[in-house]
């Protein structure tokens, strides 16, 4: 494939960012919105074209004679050359998951660009302050995220990883006059940066032992008992092999180096994907504008952690084969996070918070799915995880954009201000309902298929994982329909005096909703296994479809929805009774299990008070004291001898003469004594 279009995919959003960022203030908001949306539309077309060529062209570059999809490096430029071996390259890697991500990112990003034209104005059509800046940041984010998924090597991924973090920071703090938004943006940045520390150490460890940064070299595995993951020549297929051949004995604290490296890299993924205990930034990140939440904090950036694990999945799998714990860590973190986030989501008031916790829970589903994926079950989990990533991006973006439409119409994030909106906003109502049905896993909506794949792979791995994740899936259906019924039913909407009744939003906002609703309904029918599997070999999951598991999960979801309908469809005292029945649990869920307080305690009471203060004291008194002492001595000594500089030339000559004579005398004496 020619490199022109792939390079343009990255260059377009970057140029748009520079153009809108530098010249945006000379443009009217309307024009810059149109430019931003049109530019993203071009990127969308180019991404679709690239994915189409990758999946359907049948070129030998992308698919071999046996029908396995290959990894193809479209271009690779040396960017920084430190030594002969340590070269950091920037390039464009096409393989099933990156091509799939190109589609996801460009679709959601375009929808969000379109939607923001309507969302970022008030009811009178006046644009938000900094509208051009908003589009510039959106373009920057799109650039970073596209660069992340097509990274050819782990260092490029790390660079773009930080760039998405930075653009997320900028967009969360878009309303920079609002203190809570500023605090949220800082929190997001610091927490993810902290996680990235682990990621960086993991990269260094991994690349030290494998001797390469390149994904293609790292993940090609000529180890006995394993398939050749991707067709790579023998001399480049050194990565994992090196770890096991030469450094097998190396270990630290009971785990092999490889386990440590992978767990540390996974820590980076935990930060970005808001896995417990590094999830605390994501609910606060909802302070950003809602389209940003849809794009960054639901569909694309937060799944970067899943993508990272998927990208390095062959390494994780080899690690598991050799008895390492890295995949178990992924599973456990995912399983605990999924349950935690689902429980918390049942009690939140702010609709965006509910959706945020739901996102955390769904990403945890993907993590679990990767974690339980094993060779014996054709690595169904890997495919399921990517499938769920795809469908989740669509329906969660839909839900967020629907929530944005509600917030825009009502002017509040709180669902207690919303009740009974179904008659006022029919389009939003229907699309939101489709999103809820999809996430709850009702046939034939997309979430049903992807969630069923995940549950099947859990079932294949262990019955415990299956039961656990099914329970979480039931909770998911419950809290989503709780939200749905509380927003659209419960009681009649009361319009306050002097306010307009809420109504459907302009076409720029409803069109993305409709498109995404259609996509969320239909994209579950894509034969995903034909396109994305861990080894590129097509896997027809419909042929292996387990109708028992599907039936059970469907029944569970329907029961959960019925329970939610019974409790929240009309105004009744049942929810309040339930809350009183288990006050302790309710309090804990409502306060997110006091994680923020725990973090405050650890950072303030322990780190600040017990560690930072003594260090600050040492700095002020010992280090600064030494420097101050030196300065004082110099100062005093200078005052003492300043009389020497009298301004009287002949005095200087006296001093000089005496000094010269003394020096001469000393020299002569030394010569006489020692020669």
């Amino acid at each position, binding site marked *: 494939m020619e490199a022109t279009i792939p390079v343009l995919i990255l260059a377009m959003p970057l140029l748009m960012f520079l153009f809108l960022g530098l010249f945006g203030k000379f443009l009217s908001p309307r024009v810059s919105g149109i430019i931003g949306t049109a530019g993203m539309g071009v990127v969308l077309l180019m991404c679709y074209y690239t994915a189409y060529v990758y999946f359907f062209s049948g070129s030998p570059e992308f698919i071999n004679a046996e029908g396995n999809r290959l990894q193809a490096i479209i271009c690779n430029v040396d960017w920084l050359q430190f030594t002969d071996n340590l070269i950091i390259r920037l390039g464009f890697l096409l393989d099933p998951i990156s091509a799939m991500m190109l589609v996801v990112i460009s679709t959601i990003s375009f929808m969000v660009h379109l939607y923001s034209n309507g969302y970022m104005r008030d009811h009178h059509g006046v644009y938000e302050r900094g509208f051009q800046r908003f589009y510039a940041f959106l373009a920057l984010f799109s650039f970073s995220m596209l660069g992340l998924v097509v990274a050819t090597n782990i260092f490029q991924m790390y660079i773009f990883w930080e760039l998405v973090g930075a653009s997320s920071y900028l967009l969360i703090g878009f309303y920079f006059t609002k203190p809570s938004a500023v605090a949220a943006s800082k929190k997001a940045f610091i927490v993810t940066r902290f996680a990235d520390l682990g990621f960086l150490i993991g990269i260094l460890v991994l690349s030290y032992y494998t001797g390469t940064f390149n994904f293609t070299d790292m993940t090609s595995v000529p180890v006995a008992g394993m398939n050749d993951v991707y067709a790579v020549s023998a001399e480049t297929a050194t990565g994992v092999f090196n770890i096991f051949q030469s450094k097998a004995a190396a270990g630290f604290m009971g785990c092999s180096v490889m386990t440590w490296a992978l767990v540390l890299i996974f820590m980076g993924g935990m930060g970005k994907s808001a896995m417990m205990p590094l999830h605390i930034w994501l609910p606060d990140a909802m302070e950003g504008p809602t389209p940003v939440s849809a794009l960054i904090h639901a569909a694309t950036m937060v799944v970067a952690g899943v993508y990272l694990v998927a990208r390095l999945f062959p390494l994780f799998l080899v690690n598991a084969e050799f008895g390492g714990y890295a995949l178990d860590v992924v599973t456990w973190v995912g399983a605990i996070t999924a349950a935690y986030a689902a429980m918390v989501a049942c009690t939140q008031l702010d609709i965006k918070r509910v959706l945020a916790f739901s996102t955390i829970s769904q990403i945890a589903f993907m993590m679990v799915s990767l974690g339980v994926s094993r060779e014996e079950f054709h690595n169904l989990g890997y495919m399921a995880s990517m499938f769920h990533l795809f469908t989740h991006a669509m329906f969660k973006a839909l839900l967020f954009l629907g929530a944005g439409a509600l917030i825009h119409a009502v002017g509040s994030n709180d669902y207690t201000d919303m009740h009974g909106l179904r008659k006022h906003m029919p389009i939003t109502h229907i699309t939101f309902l489709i999103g809820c049905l999809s996430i709850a896993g009702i046939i034939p909506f997309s979430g049903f298929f992807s969630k069923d794949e995940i549950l099947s792979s859990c079932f294949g791995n262990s019955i415990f994982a299956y039961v656990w994740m099914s329970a979480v899936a039931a909770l998911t259906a419950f809290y989503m329909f709780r939200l749905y019924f509380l927003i659209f039913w419960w009681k009649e909407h009361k319009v306050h005096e002097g306010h307009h009744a809420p109504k459907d939003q302009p076409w720029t906002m409803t069109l993305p909703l409709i498109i995404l609703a259609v996509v969320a309904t239909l994209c579950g029918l894509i034969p995903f296994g034909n396109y994305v599997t861990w080894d590129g070999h097509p896997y027809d999951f419909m042929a292996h479809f387990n109708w028992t598991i599907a039936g059970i999960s469907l029944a569970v979801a329907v029961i959960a929805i019925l329970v939610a309908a019974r409790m929240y469809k009309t105004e009744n005292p049942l929810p309040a009774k339930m809350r009183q029945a288990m006050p302790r649990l309710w309090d804990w869920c409502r306060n997110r299990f006091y994680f923020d307080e725990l973090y405050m305690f650890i950072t303030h009471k322990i780190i600040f008070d017990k560690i930072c203060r003594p260090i600050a004291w040492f700095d002020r008194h010992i280090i600064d004291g030494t420097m101050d002492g030196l300065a004082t001595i110099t100062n005093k000594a200078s005052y003492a001898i*300043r*009389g020497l*500089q*009298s*301004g*009287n*030339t*002949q005095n200087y*000559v*006296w001093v000089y*003469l005496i000094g010269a004579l003394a020096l001469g005398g000393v020299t002569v004496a030394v010569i006489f004594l020692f020669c």
Partner: protein
Amino acid sequence: MNFEFEWNSIMFLIPSLFMFCCGVYGFLTRRNMIAILISLELMLNAVDMNFVVFNRFLYPGQLDGMFFTLFAIAIAAAETAIAIAIIINAFRISRDIDVKDLSKMKF
């Protein structure tokens, strides 16, 4: 180094030493800047003489010392020009060339 050579060289070095000491004395005791400049020239010439003497008696086949002296004379001329320019400017400012009165540059 033979006896005859030492005597011959010392016959030249003694006047040079005398000139140098006169220069130092004049430099330290005179108040008039022109007189100080003259004392300075005296010291420089004493040094130049030493160069010539040592070159002549220690390395008779070479000319390094002679050339150095020529350079020193040339530079001394330039230096004198500068010194006189400074003195004239100092006189313009303070109507005085007494070195004791030019002591503004101090701590």
